């Protein structure tokens, strides 16, 4: 298993390299640059700026220099927020995004699994139809609708919770954003668990348990463990996406996460900030896919990585 993990980490290096390269050149293909303002700068100033940030160099040279810096963990200075390095910006926002994302995943797992398993156990009952209906709604209603509705109801109407802001991570401030992030995931998890559970309850080995009179609890536990397997593969990429922040949720609730930097950076042609975000997201995706594979082996004894 350790050997497998090591090999996978080694295998991630070329992937990461390809992602960085592609992002670097794609970014440069976009017209405009970080210092293009509505009123053009004087040619002399522009030249100076370009030279300070190394943008006057040939493209391949810039690329090699970026790679060299990246290898030392240096993501470079932000071109737009000129007092900060990209590393500083990300280190500030990442904990916020991760805290929100992790809470949302946990909530989605617990609630989604519960709802899905319950619906499967009472397949075709009113409760089952209700769960399926809610799940469909959860997937189809976009978060930029859900978020303002929750703000109006719980923030303005009932005045139970703050409408926005981070407030140094106070629980009250996190509740609404976490719910908004978790709702679509609850829906997906509930649907997947329901389908897998229905399948599992029909399986031959579950019939064996029933033929041995082992009782409902044990039957459900066995079926649920089998039904969890497909969820695990789904959760890998989802976790990576959630932990690296959501533009919409962070913007609506005014949260200092990293989700919005990707969009802001791209619009401002803040090359280094975009690259930094790309690297962070890519690393998260690779890490969580590895975690999924390891978790899978832990859950399913038939899977062995030699």
């Amino acid at each position, binding site marked *: 298993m350790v050997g497998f993990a090591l090999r996978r980490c080694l295998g991630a290096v070329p992937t990461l390299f390809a992602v960085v390269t592609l992002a670097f050149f794609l970014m440069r293909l976009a017209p405009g640059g970080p210092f293009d303002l509505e009123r053009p700068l004087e040619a002399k100033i522009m030249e100076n700026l370009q030279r300070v940030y190394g943008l006057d160099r040939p493209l391949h040279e810039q690329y090699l220099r970026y790679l060299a810096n990246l290898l030392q963990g240096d993501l470079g200075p932000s071109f737009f927020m000129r007092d900060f390095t990209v590393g500083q910006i990300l280190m500030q926002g990442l904990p916020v995004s991760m805290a929100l994302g992790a809470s949302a995943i946990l909530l989605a797992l617990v609630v989604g699994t519960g709802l899905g398993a319950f619906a499967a156990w009472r397949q075709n009952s009113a409760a089952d139809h209700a769960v399926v209906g809610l799940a469909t709604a959860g997937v189809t209603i976009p978060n930029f609708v859900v978020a303002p509705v929750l703000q109006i109801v719980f923030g303005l109407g009932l005045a139970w919770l703050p409408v926005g802001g981070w407030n140094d991570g106070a629980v009250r401030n996190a509740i609404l954003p976490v719910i908004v992030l978790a709702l679509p995931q609850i829906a997906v998890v509930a649907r997947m668990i329901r389908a897998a559970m229905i399948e599992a309850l029909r399986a031959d080995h*579950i019939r064996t348990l029933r033929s041995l009179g082992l009782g409902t609890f044990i039957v459900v536990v066995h079926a649920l463990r089998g039904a969890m397997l497909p969820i695990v593969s789904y959760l890998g990429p989802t976790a990576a996406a959630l932990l690296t922040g959501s533009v919409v949720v962070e913007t609506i609730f005014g949260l200092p996460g990293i989700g919005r930097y990707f969009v802001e950076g791209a619009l401002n042609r803040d090359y280094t900030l975009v690259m930094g975000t790309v690297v962070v997201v890519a690393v998260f995706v690779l890490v969580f896919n590895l975690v999924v594979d390891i978790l899978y082996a832990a859950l399913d004894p038939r899977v062995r990585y030699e």
Partner: protein
Amino acid sequence: MRSTRATAEMEASVLSIRDLDVRFRTQAGELHAVRRVSLDIARGDTLAIVGESGSGKSQTMLAALGLLASNGIVAGSAKLDGVEMVGASQKALDRLRGRRVAMIFQEPMTSLDPLYTVGSLLVTTIKRHQGLGAAAARAKAIAMLARVRIAEPEARLSSYPHELSGGQRQRVMIALALANRPDLLVADEPTTALDVTIQAEILELLAELQAEMGMAIAFITHDLGIVRRFARHVAVMRGGEIVETGPTHDVFANPRDAYTRELIDAEPSGRKMPIVADAPILLEARDMRVHFDLRLGFFGAKRLAIKAVDGVDVQVRAGETLGIVGESGSGKSTLARALVRLAPAAGLVRFEDRALLPLSKAQLRPVRRSLQLVFQDPYGSLSPRLTVGEIVSEGLRVHSPELSANARDARAAAALEEVRLDAALRHRFPHEFSGGQRQRIAIARAIILRPKLVLLDEPTSALDRSIQKTIVELLRELQAKHGMGYVFISHDIATVRAMADRIAVMKDGKIVEEGPTETLLGHPQADYTRRLLAAAALERGTARPI
């Protein structure tokens, strides 16, 4: 008022089923699977419930135990030791199941939870019904595994099902079912998915455990050999009804029902006509070897060579049938595929006068026409999106491109008629046909090209006995008519006996014995052949009862 005798009988019954009726709600409407079935199983007795697939034999027992699929509706009564099980609560059923009645199933591969160890299942079952502590239950579990003759039972407790062979898994199932010494064991085709020698071992084990523990067994099977050897009483089912019931010996000696007689006669019979002495050699292989390289470890540094076929010589003459028998994993199917270059092989293969192995793909194409295949699974081997006519005539498109669509269609119709299917059915799709009909379609697809040699890879194994018999007869008839050579692969001795001129017995990639059919079956030389035949004889019920 009930007569005293009937009452006495009721009391002696461990299971008493009255007017049991099972229906399934399906999208195509209601399916009436079991129709007012009544039967009794006496304490310690063995009752075989026989019938072909779809006769309702499994559903009857599943319904009695409350194990039907969720769309099943049960009516009637099934009493276990006088306790009604139909309509009983889940809790009430769970007090009976696993303790007073238990069941083993056909598929040992899927009937154990792959995520749990053998030990955890056994210990849970024992703890639940005997109220023992963990240590005592564990000791019992080890004893039970030892009792079903699992080697190193203690170590096996921590094995997962996928680490066991099919026979071992079925032993584990038996251990689970009998761990709490039930009064009744329902065995649903427990040996069907196993190799013959393993089948024999499992049957022997069941007989032994029955003698020791005294439970009654309801044996659901389509195999009359097992019935003859194993069951004191038999109930024959067809179309959801019991058509005949009685002591096994009486039913077999004097079958009253026409269907029972049909079942008894269903064993493939007759022999193949011998070939002419100087028939030309069609196919000859010398020192055939098929080795697979498994690459393991970091970047495939470690290699493991598997010798699927290891130095085999075979020869088939025109009009001759070579039977290849062996258990799963013996290499018989790989050998067949290698003979027609569907698997990479080394050695020498000569078809008529051409060496096959050096030929390029393009050079091989005209030869392919003369070499056709029929596979075991009539469901998987026909494309579901083509009509039967298209499937049958597809080979002509490749090998006789000069034929017009009409001419091809006419040839397809003729080929279907040759395998005794209505040619008008050629516009339908495969899913509308039964397994036996599909196998006929597969045969029509092979013979439409007028091949010289046909490889038949277990063509009858997936079919019911009575269908097997008609397919065997059809194959013999087509051979007599067209003079094709056959390579007939099977694990079923009775079928091979009815088909083959010569038999080769394979084990671990080698031919352990080869000879004319009657000589080899009558006077087997190799030890392995003798074991194989003993197991098969026992299956056919010709061995003495134990």
